């Protein structure tokens, strides 16, 4: 050990290791872990090793879960669920409070264990992960307490299968388990195979407090175990992990009436404007991409800097990079610890090498890496073109890209030039500019002058291919609750649409002037691309012709919908005015629509039209009232939860109630600012096509509602596969529902599929439709002088 006088020369920090004795003693005593099922640990069966990535040493052996293990866990959860849901909210709150308290009492134990298993610096597990875990259980104890009052009519979903990643093992467990339990669900959770140990310690805490058996079940294992859980008889799957696996899960759950939330990858922009506090922004980079070894789904991995300050910014960034300490994760002065395992390290190295090969310049900290263990020196790329692989692909390591922009518009364009949409960080001292960009960026979480700030009180989750669903806050609770499912109404099967002439079935007398319904795209009537029309029949008689739309018509309709982007920026009042006007014009033609529905063979035509008019009033009323919240999170922080429209949505309407079914779906979507491509009832599209003139006279901007008639499932398939459609609603049979969910995996669009329902009653309208038409963006705005 150097002497005091030696150290006075060097002024080094010296080693400051956190003691790990308590944890290593526990690990040695356990040796091999079984699964935690029905309140007890199973025998280990086949086991694999869990390693310390900083040293390569074996920490413990952990069971590899089989399909039978998963089935046993699901069975236990199923058995426990009704009793757990029946408990008064206050009783569940007491259990969650006990979990919070016990996590706090074991805070250092859990932090050390997390650091050993994951490789993250003890500072982070101690100061960030574990306190947030406790905070999450406290927060959700509160939701359990208030559930009936805050979510009237809602109840538990049932058994939740939860699959969590290795980057924040215990924190992700808390994000999954706390809301599920608060809502009255029971869970089967599979931790990542790289980092199962804190989940197993948590299982011991559940046992320690005497949590009713079967409420929390933990099955360890690799991707196969996860696949078995996805395939099991669960009511919900909640997954956090890669976009690639998210797609697989989306397909595997398609058509199964399994609720799904996905929190996936990201390539989040970190935008530094010329008027930013550059030192603050540099420190932000440290908290963004050099946090947790860059293994953070919401990491600000694409640094975009205004050209005017790029030189000054990079100089400071370089200096700050030089101060980072890389090494022993248990050392209290370590900034960057170990990469989670050798596989991930190899992936980072490969991507970084590819980035360099494609012309980017790598700048790395000149840190002395430990001789063994999974370490990677943090850094960033310059000279990196948007087409470079490291601009597009999530590295999931401590390496960002640094590029410049000229104007705020270009910053937004670059920020949104990604298939992901998880988070964004915006640095500017100009609040007008910062909030303008916050509104324009496609991301579920936006941090102004800050980054990677988390709190249980705010929702977290992505846009685009970063997934759907939210965790945390009120919006997160919604994803673990369900209203009673509306009673399905039978729908006649639509036969094949026939484009050939139907001789001998004239609908009207000779004096009738023929009306041909075209498609309605961009506010104009368009001929179908196919050149075909099909006969619309009522009681076997032809009452008109409708265009037989095809994939190109869908393409054109989506393009037209994108051009009508101004609708999303209009005020709720503006949209309400249009919807009221629409109701007014529909009312003026009430007689005509009633007659038309009557001719089409609709059972109660007058009632359907009256109901449609009321519906327009209802969504006009909601247009400027369905709004967001300010969450109570950190001190001196306005955390805005803003419901935003998806943008362009596809809507496949029911065959029944051709007017009311159509408007019941289209109106809430456009009331929230979406533009839609709607597929009206195939057997009776004229009820919808008759609306063209109503739309035109109601000042509805062209492109907000686009209507393509034709075969529903064929057109819905094209919509589901369309990468520039953000969400799709589908009303119809189970085959179509399954198809839409499965085919939506391509861009992970948000889906809502359901059977036909009674459109006249309470099931036909409500806040549910508005919640489904929006995604919540949380914007964090710290303040203070």
């Amino acid at each position: 050990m150097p002497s005091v006088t030696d150290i006075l020369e060097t002024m080094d920090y010296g080693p400051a290791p956190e003691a790990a004795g308590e944890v290593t003693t526990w690990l040695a005593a356990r040796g091999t872990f079984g699964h935690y099922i029905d309140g007890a640990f199973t025998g280990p069966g086949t086991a694999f090793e869990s390693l310390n990535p900083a040293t390569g040493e074996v920490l413990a052996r952990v069971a590899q879960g089989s399909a039978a293990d998963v089935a046993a866990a699901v069975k236990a959860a199923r058995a426990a669920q009704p009793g757990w849901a029946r408990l008064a909210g206050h009783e569940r709150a007491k259990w969650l409070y006990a979990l919070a308290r016990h996590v706090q009492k074991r805070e250092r134990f859990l932090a050390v264990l997390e650091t050993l298993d994951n490789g993250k610096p003890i500072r982070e597990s101690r100061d960030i992960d574990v306190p947030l875990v406790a905070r999450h259980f406290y927060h959700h104890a509160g939701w359990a307490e208030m559930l009936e009052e805050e979510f009237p009519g809602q109840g538990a979903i049932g058994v939740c299968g939860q699959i969590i990643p290795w980057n924040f093992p215990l924190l992700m467990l808390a994000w999954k388990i706390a809301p599920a339990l608060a809502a009255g669900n029971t869970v089967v959770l599979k931790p990542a195979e790289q980092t199962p140990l804190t989940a197993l310690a948590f299982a011991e805490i559940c046992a320690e407090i005497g949590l009713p058996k079967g409420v929390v079940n933990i099955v360890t294992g690799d991707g196969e175990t996860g696949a078995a859980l996805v395939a099991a008889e669960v009511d919900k799957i909640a997954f956090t992990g890669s976009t690639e696996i998210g797609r697989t899960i989306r397909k595997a759950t398609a058509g199964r009436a399994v609720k799904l939330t996905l929190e996936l990858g990201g390539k989040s922009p970190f935008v530094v404007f010329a008027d930013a506090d550059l030192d603050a922004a540099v420190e932000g980079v440290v908290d963004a991409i050099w946090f947790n070894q860059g293994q953070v789904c919401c990491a600000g991995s694409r640094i975009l800097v205004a050209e005017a300050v790029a030189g000054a910014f990079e100089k400071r960034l370089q200096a700050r990079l030089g101060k980072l300490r890389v090494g022993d994760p248990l050392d209290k002065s370590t900034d960057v610890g170990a990469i989670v395992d050798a596989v991930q390290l190899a992936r980072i190295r490969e991507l970084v090498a590819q980035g360099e090969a494609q012309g980017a310049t790598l700048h790395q900290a000149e840190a002395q890496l430990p001789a063994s263990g999974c370490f990677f020196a943090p850094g960033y790329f310059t000279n990196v073109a948007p087409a470079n692989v490291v601009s597009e692909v999530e590295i999931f390591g401590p390496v960002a890209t640094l590029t410049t922009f000229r104007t705020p518009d270009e910053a937004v364009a670059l920020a949104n030039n990604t298939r992901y949409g998880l988070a964004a960080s915006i640095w500017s001292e100009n609040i007008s500019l910062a909030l303008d960009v916050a509104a324009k960026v496609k991301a579920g979480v936006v941090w102004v002058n800050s980054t990677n700030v988390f709190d249980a009180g705010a929702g977290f989750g992505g846009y685009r291919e970063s997934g759907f669903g939210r965790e945390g806050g009120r919006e997160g609770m919604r994803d673990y609750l369900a209203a009673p499912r509306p009673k399905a109404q039978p729908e006649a099967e639509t036969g094949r649409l026939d484009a050939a002439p139907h001789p001998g079935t004239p609908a009207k007398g000779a004096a009738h002037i023929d009306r041909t319904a075209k498609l309605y795209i961009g506010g104009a009537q368009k001929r179908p691309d196919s050149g075909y029309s099909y006969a619309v029949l009522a009681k076997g008689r032809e009452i008109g012709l409708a265009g037989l739309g095809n994939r190109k018509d869908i393409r054109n309709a989506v393009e037209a919908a994108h051009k009508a982007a101004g609708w999303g920026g209009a005020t709720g009042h503006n949209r309400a005015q249009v919807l009221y006007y629409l109701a007014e014009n529909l009312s003026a033609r009430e007689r005509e629509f009633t007659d038309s529905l009557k001719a089409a063979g609709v059972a109660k035509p007058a009632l359907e039209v009256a109901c449609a008019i009321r519906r327009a009033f209802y969504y006009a009323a909601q247009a400027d009232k369905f709004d967001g919240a300010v969450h109570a999170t950190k001190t001196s922080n306005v955390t805005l939860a803003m419901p935003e429209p998806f943008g362009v949505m596809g809507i496949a309407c029911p065959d029944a109630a051709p007017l009311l079914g159509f408007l019941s779906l289209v109106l809430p979507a456009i009331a929230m600012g979406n533009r839609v491509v709607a597929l009206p009832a195939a057997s009776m599209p004229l009820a919808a096509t008759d609306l063209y003139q109503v739309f035109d006279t109601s000042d509805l901007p062209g492109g907000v509602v686009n209507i393509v008639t034709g075969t529903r499932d064929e057109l819905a398939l094209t919509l589901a596969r369309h990468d520039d459609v953000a969400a799709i609603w589908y009303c119809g049979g189970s085959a179509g529902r399954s198809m839409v969910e499965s085919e939506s995996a391509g861009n992970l669009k948000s889906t809502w599929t359901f059977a036909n329902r009674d459109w006249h009653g309470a099931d036909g309208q409500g806040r549910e439709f508005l919640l489904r038409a929006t995604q919540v963006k949380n914007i964090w705005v710290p303040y203070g002088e």
Partner: protein
Amino acid sequence: MQTDGSGSGTNSARNAGVPLQVDWFDQIAVNTQAAERRAATLTTRRTVKKQWQAAWLVNAIRCMDLTTLAGDDTEDRVRRLCAKAARPLADPIMAGLGLERLTTGAVCVYPTMVAAAARALRGTGIPVASVATGFPAGLMPLDLRLAEIRYAVNQGADEIDIVITRAHVLDGNWAALHDEVAAMREACGAAHMKAILATGDLKTLRNVYKASMVAMQAGADFIKTSTGKEGVNATLPVSLVMLRALRDYGERTGWRIGFKPAGGMKTAKDALAWQILMKEELGNDWLRPDLFRLGASSMLADIERQLDHHVTGRYAASFRHALA
């Protein structure tokens, strides 16, 4: 080895100052929450333990301006303080640490106490620092303030801690502030000048940055946070912003400016926190007394207790250590 503060101020060429350059600071952006976050995490990101902690605490002593600035100061009181500055740790602690010689960086007193301090410190190599310019408020006619500087220097002060006119900052009257500080620097002559910004009165971190920059442009050798008499004295966020101003001035001019936090720092833990700040933001050069001073009165007693514990393994009692 010799670990004292003597000869401080000789390692760097003195800041000659520059004419007022408003464009170096008038557009400065300082985000308060971000500065507070950085300050709050500095001491959670770095720590020193065992032998290293002992060495860092010793370093704090050699960078310390051991201070008495009270209305009831007497010459005897100042002599007692000087004795402690010359022999800040009890002999067994010194021996336990393997140190032969250690003094504080300076002793800091009122102008009327300079002569007594200089006499008491004769032969120790410890410089005498004097506050001046109508300390602490500074609201005296400029000619009287300049006369006070000359008086303190004549009495034997090696360093002068001046206070700025806060009104010039609050009014944005940068020319007046520059003129005033430049005149004070001239009055200091060979004595090093530390410019006290009284940041607790300036309130905003942007004001702190701007005042720092003007003081350096006007020729300050050190910038110093506080008199110890404001409502809020040295804080880490304020210090962080001053260091960034100091770094920026250095990048533009090449001059290396010293930093002195003062007021409210009472514990060994504070001593470590500020040193971590210096090392992280500026580097090891700013852990030496020529560029770093801690203005403190009671901190030394806590440091001595911690070092006693380090040497003996027993928790210490202050009454067993010599008073300052």
